[in-house]
């Protein structure tokens, strides 16, 4: 198990190549990266690269169609959050691994029903650190409030959490030490951060009952 940044955008979406990202990630103490639309997979410079796809859809039908298409090529499927009904539908769909961008969605789109759905289906909620790093004032306060709310529901319903930097450049990547400090701003404990950084591995290899083959 290793520390994974659950969403980075390498070149051409960002300004940093995939291999350069892996070099920087290793230096910062990360063991794995989920690279969106990455051309390579596997271990690069001792960092495990997984291919992720971010899906944005207006309706659930659109999302289902895109998920089916992406399942063939991607290790991890991330869906951008929408309104409450959309999120509930996404969280009950088996092919989705992570729901991200809750801080951008309107207020109260992730409630106790969504939290229970996420816990039952094992879909993770992503905590994107980019608004904490880049935003100031009201925007950052709204994101912190959203993450506090998600954390409160996580402590009650135990759905998985992931942490991502949303980095488009190597300057946006953060070390494990920095991630722990940033997550402490909205009340996340170090052991919860450690757990969230290891969630991606568990999403791809969920634990189940022992089977005799």
């Amino acid at each position, binding site marked *: 198990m290793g520390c994974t940044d659950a969403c980075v955008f390498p*070149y051409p979406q960002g300004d940093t190549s995939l291999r350069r990202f892996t*070099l920087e990630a290793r230096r910062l103490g990360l063991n794995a990266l989920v690279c969106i639309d990455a051309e390579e997979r596997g271990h690069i410079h001792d960092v495990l690269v997984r291919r992720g796809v971010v899906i944005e859809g207006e309706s659930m039908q659109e999302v289902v169609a895109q998920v089916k298409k992406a399942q063939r090529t991607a290790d991890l499927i991330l869906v951008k959050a929408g309104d409450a009904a959309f999120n509930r539908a996404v969280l009950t769909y088996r092919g989705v691994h992570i729901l991200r961008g809750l801080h951008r969605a309107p207020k109260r789109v992730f409630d106790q029903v969504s939290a229970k759905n996420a816990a039952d289906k094992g879909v993770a909620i992503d905590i994107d650190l980019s608004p904490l*790093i880049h935003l100031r004032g009201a925007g*950052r306060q709204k994101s912190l409030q959203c993450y506090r709310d998600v954390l409160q529901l996580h402590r009650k319903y135990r759905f998985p959490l992931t942490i991502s930097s949303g980095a488009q450049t190597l*300057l946006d990547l953060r070390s494990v030490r*920095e991630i722990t400090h*940033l997550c402490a701003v909205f009340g996340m404990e170090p052991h919860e951060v450690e757990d969230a950084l290891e969630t991606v591995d568990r999403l791809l290899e969920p634990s189940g009952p022992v089977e005799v083959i």
Partner: protein
Amino acid sequence: MKPRPPTLRQKRRYILAEVIPHYRRIEPRQMYIAAFEALSSLWGDAHTSELQMAVISCECGYCIFRCTRGSEAFVETALSTVTEVNGERVALHPMATSGTLHALKTRMRPLPEEHTLEGVELAGVMYSGIIFQRQKVDLYAKGIKNQETLYFTRDEMEVD
């Protein structure tokens, strides 16, 4: 003014932060402005005044900050949110905290050797750049200051 006796002085801690990219030349004053803005926007003016943050030095790709003992975590968190200094994109990665400057200076590594690179064409745009640590290549679009920067590795660029 007569300095306070040692027993009445406030205990201090020093924080070593790495500046990325290492070749950006940043004035300590500019770094102080950026760090103070990050601190006050994250923790508010009242709390920031308690932290007593100061920039001790800013050279060779590293920056040393001073703060009151017990407030290191607050300063480190705020330093993680610094994204630009004097209009230039940088990242600050806090590396270590200590009670003495000497201990931090032992953690500082010498700057990597750099080689300049000219006339690299990528997607129809001409770039110049720097190669360092044998495999890292930073490219700058030629011409105007603060233009697009690309971060690649040597094997992707296929340069000699």
